[in-house]
């Protein structure tokens, strides 16, 4: 078994990163100019990395499959970004953010990484504000904060319900500035289809120009994958339609280990499925839980309109079960609690698979505060409501509009109906402290890697991690590798390794095109999604997972016999793009189920029904499972697991309690 070296620096937790930064080897400016770096992905992680590395003087090439780097999936993030600024004077600190994140992740993340993340979090806010990111502000002109789940402080910075958009546009502007200067070459509408290895090191990629269909070879001294998460393996998720695992999976097949693939986050507050036509699910940001109260009727099959159900006949089940955190329990806990109520027959809406998220209480509370501020004596209910509505609108206006567009219902007047949906993947390519995968010279940043969030990610921490990786971690850690590479000249792309890699990609495309089967790509994707959601979703058990594995294997066979891709290769062909992605999702799905089967404990978002407390909470088994599972690819459907034992020097894993 390979020994995984996480390269966590020695020394006290608080000094690891500072020491690392001051001793890591550097590359001098003249040498940087002749070093080329490939950055695949232009989301928060990719755009921030590409811009920051180019500012340092490296020659950067950046890729995305959308028509512009500004459209990466990060754009859709709504609620906010965490940072240990303690601007609210409410007791926040680097340590507390670190602690909340390790605990929130159910003690399945590395202390060293998480501490570093908390340390650099404050710099991110500074950087973004300097770029002109218009965060929400108070009347005094200072930055405003709100709370997210799993914490008791207000440390989340936000821009209405469009935080990801504003952060990404900040990173995109930094990236475009470098494009203008000529230090970054941007390749939009390009999809990476393989990694090129030379002497065991990542030295380039094969990409397909999605407009012409032509394959291209690109050299880089190092390759960074910032390609996002794989939630779309479930077909329905809150991810953008194009989000995929292809880049990470190709890297996995070339030797990069896959860490904790089964750790998936199911987000508690999403708009429920409305029918078979559904192509994606829409998140209603967790920030809404600041001001929305979640409830179901106390009576089964209560078909009254929500406004007609009196207060005492409502079950605010989160407040009931978790008085200390109430509606702000972490996502995994909130999701399971919603499922429990619906499975028990208390769900609402036509499908009965939904719960209410109700803003009435806080709308009225805000209304009264506003009335006071304005000095209105004895305001009427209607006046209070109107004033309160304005406050709510300012905070969440775009989310409310989105809800109304999708459902046709007005959430200012009637509670939202929500249900959990696949949202985020904590698993991803295994990386060490330097963000390098098990392939030398190949890095993974942002949601594409497995680090930092353990078995459950806290809200507003993905944006933080993506930007931490790109702005403040990789610019340092990449020096450790590239300083040993300053004598490596650019390798011409007629090198046999490039020729061979391109040939293999070409063969795979030919194979797909030549199947000429009967069923559409979506047909297979939907089938895979159903298997994954039913058997590797919110609840998992041995029987279901074992069945899922054989069903997925059968689906893989069927896919390669019967998929139909119209059109040709040498043109824009969206079905061919999708087919390649679904082929990879099918292989990944199998690995996820294997990982879930192996991990017999429950932890965070991974709920093994066999392992729960008497109250139905997730029960960890630290003696047996306090490790990261890192899977090595051994051929189709064959994987070997390696363990990285987790060591806790500072926090002591205990059963999480939010009561």
């Amino acid at each position, binding site marked *: 078994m390979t020994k995984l070296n996480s390269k966590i620096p020695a020394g006290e937790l608080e000094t690891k990163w500072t020491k690392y930064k001051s001793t890591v080897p550097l590359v001098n400016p003249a040498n940087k100019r002749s070093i080329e770096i490939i950055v695949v992905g232009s989301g928060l992680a990719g755009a921030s990395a590409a811009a920051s590395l180019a500012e340092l003087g490296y020659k950067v090439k950046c890729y995305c499959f959308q028509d512009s780097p500004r459209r990466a999936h990060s754009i859709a993030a709504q609620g906010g970004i965490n940072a240990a600024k303690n601007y609210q004077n409410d007791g926040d600190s680097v340590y507390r953010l670190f602690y909340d994140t390790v605990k929130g992740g159910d003690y399945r993340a590395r202390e060293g990484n998480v501490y570093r993340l908390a340390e650099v979090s404050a710099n991110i806010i500074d950087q973004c504000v300097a*770029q002109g990111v*218009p965060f929400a502000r108070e009347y005094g002109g200072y930055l405003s904060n709100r709370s997210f789940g799993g914490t008791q402080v207000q440390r989340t910075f936000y821009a209405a319900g469009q935080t990801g958009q504003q952060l990404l546009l900040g990173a995109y*502007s930094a990236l475009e500035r470098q494009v203008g200067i000529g230090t970054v070459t941007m390749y939009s509408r390009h999809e990476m289809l393989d990694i090129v290895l030379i002497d065991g090191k990542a030295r380039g990629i094969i990409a397909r120009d999605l407009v012409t269909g032509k394959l291209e070879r690109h050299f880089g001294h190092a390759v960074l994958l910032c390609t996002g998460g794989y939630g779309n393996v479930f077909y329905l998720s809150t991810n953008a339609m194009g989000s995929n695992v292809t880049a990470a999976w190709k890297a996995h097949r070339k030797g990069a280990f896959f860490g904790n693939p089964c750790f998936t986050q199911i987000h508690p507050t999403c708009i429920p499925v409305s029918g078979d036509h559904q192509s994606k699910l829409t998140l209603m940001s967790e920030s809404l839980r600041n001001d929305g109260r979640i409830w179901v009727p106390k009576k089964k099959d209560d078909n009254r309109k929500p406004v007609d159900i009196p207060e005492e006949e409502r079950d605010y089940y989160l407040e009931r079960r978790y008085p200390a955190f109430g509606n702000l329990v972490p996502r995994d806990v909130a999701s399971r609690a919603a499922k429990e109520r619906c499975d028990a027959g208390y769900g609402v809406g036509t499908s009965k698979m939904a719960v209410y998220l109700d803003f009435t209480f806080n709308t009225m509370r805000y209304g009264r505060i506003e009335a006071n501020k304005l000095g209105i004596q004895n305001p009427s209910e209607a006046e209070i409501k109107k004033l309160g509505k304005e406050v709510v609108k300012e905070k969440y206006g775009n989310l409310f509009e989105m809800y109304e567009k999708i459902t046709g219902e007005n959430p200012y007047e009637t509670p939202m109906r929500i249900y959990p949906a696949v949202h985020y993947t904590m698993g991803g390519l295994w990386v060490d402290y330097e963000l390098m995968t098990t392939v030398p010279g190949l890095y993974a940043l942002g949601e594409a890697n497995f680090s930092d969030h353990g078995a459950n990610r806290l809200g507003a921490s993905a944006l933080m991690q993506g930007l931490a990786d790109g702005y403040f971690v990789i610019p340092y850690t990449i020096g450790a590798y590239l300083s040993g590479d300053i004598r490596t000249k650019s390798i011409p792309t007629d090198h046999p390794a490039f020729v061979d890699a391109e040939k293999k990609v070409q063969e795979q495309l030919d194979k797909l095109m030549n199947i000429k089967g009967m069923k559409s790509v979506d047909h297979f994707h939907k089938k895979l999604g159903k298997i994954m959601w039913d058997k590797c979703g919110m609840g998992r058990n041995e029987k279901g997972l074992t069945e899922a594995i054989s069903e997925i294997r059968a689906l893989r066979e069927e896919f390669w016999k019967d998929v139909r891709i119209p059109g040709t290769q040498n043109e824009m062909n969206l079905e061919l793009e999708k087919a390649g992605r679904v082929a990879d999702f099918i292989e990944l799905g199998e690995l996820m189920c294997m990982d879930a089967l192996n991990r017999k404990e429950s932890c965070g978002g991974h709920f093994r029904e066999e392992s729960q407390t008497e109250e139905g909470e997730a029960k960890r088994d630290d003696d047996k499972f306090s490790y990261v599972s890192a899977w090595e690819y051994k051929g189709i459907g064959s994987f070997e697991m390696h363990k990285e034992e987790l060591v806790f020097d500072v926090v002591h894993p205990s059963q999480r309690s939010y009561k």
Partner: protein
Amino acid sequence: MSEKKLNLTLKVWRQKNAKEAGNFITYKVTDISTDMSFLEMFDVLNEQLINKGEEPIAFDHDCREGICGMCSMYINGRAHGPAQGTTTCQLHMRKFKDGDTITVEPWRASSFPVIKDLVVDRSAFDHIISAGGFVSVNTGNAQDANNLPVPKNDADNAFAAAACIGCGACVAACKNSSAMLFVSAKVSQLALLPQGQIERETRVLNMVKTMDDEGFGSCTNTGACEAECPKEISVENIARLNREYLMANLK
């Protein structure tokens, strides 16, 4: 909301690639739920085409939440279709009636050449941003974020301008194919914030120059852009852009 089913006729622009000429093709779709989004209706149509062995219609989309700016259909003569402040992906079929005929075209503007069917090339927008739509601050340069308070009103207005999703509907809606609304949104965002002051003049000059070089038309104040903008970016931004441009030229 109660779900209804619609039968529709679609006239869709089909164009093999940038070089070949395109034309409208008529399709029928049946049993379309009013709960579907416009793009989900297209998914149904495409599935139908694939099952018949025909090529599906190429269209751009990604987030399907109205935020990435990728979707871009010109529906019944309106950019993003009939609903106010709504992207194509957020347009729902309950806005249509049973038996409707719906015409769908790509954005039409010489600076946005058609790539295939409903997909156009909007890279000109990226070029405009790289000419000046940024604050030149390297990673690591920044001071503490709260050292520079910003009046809430300015921050809110900057945010309203920054909400532009770069979809290009303003260009498609404008008879001159002007990009003024898009450019003015970015110029305004940064002109309203203290962080944007230092490069205020060069920014507006460079962005406007690139806008002209990319072949976008001039603004004749018809206001069509604001009417069709899915993020309801205000034409007041164009007035601000004009002032900024004038001031910069006077210096």
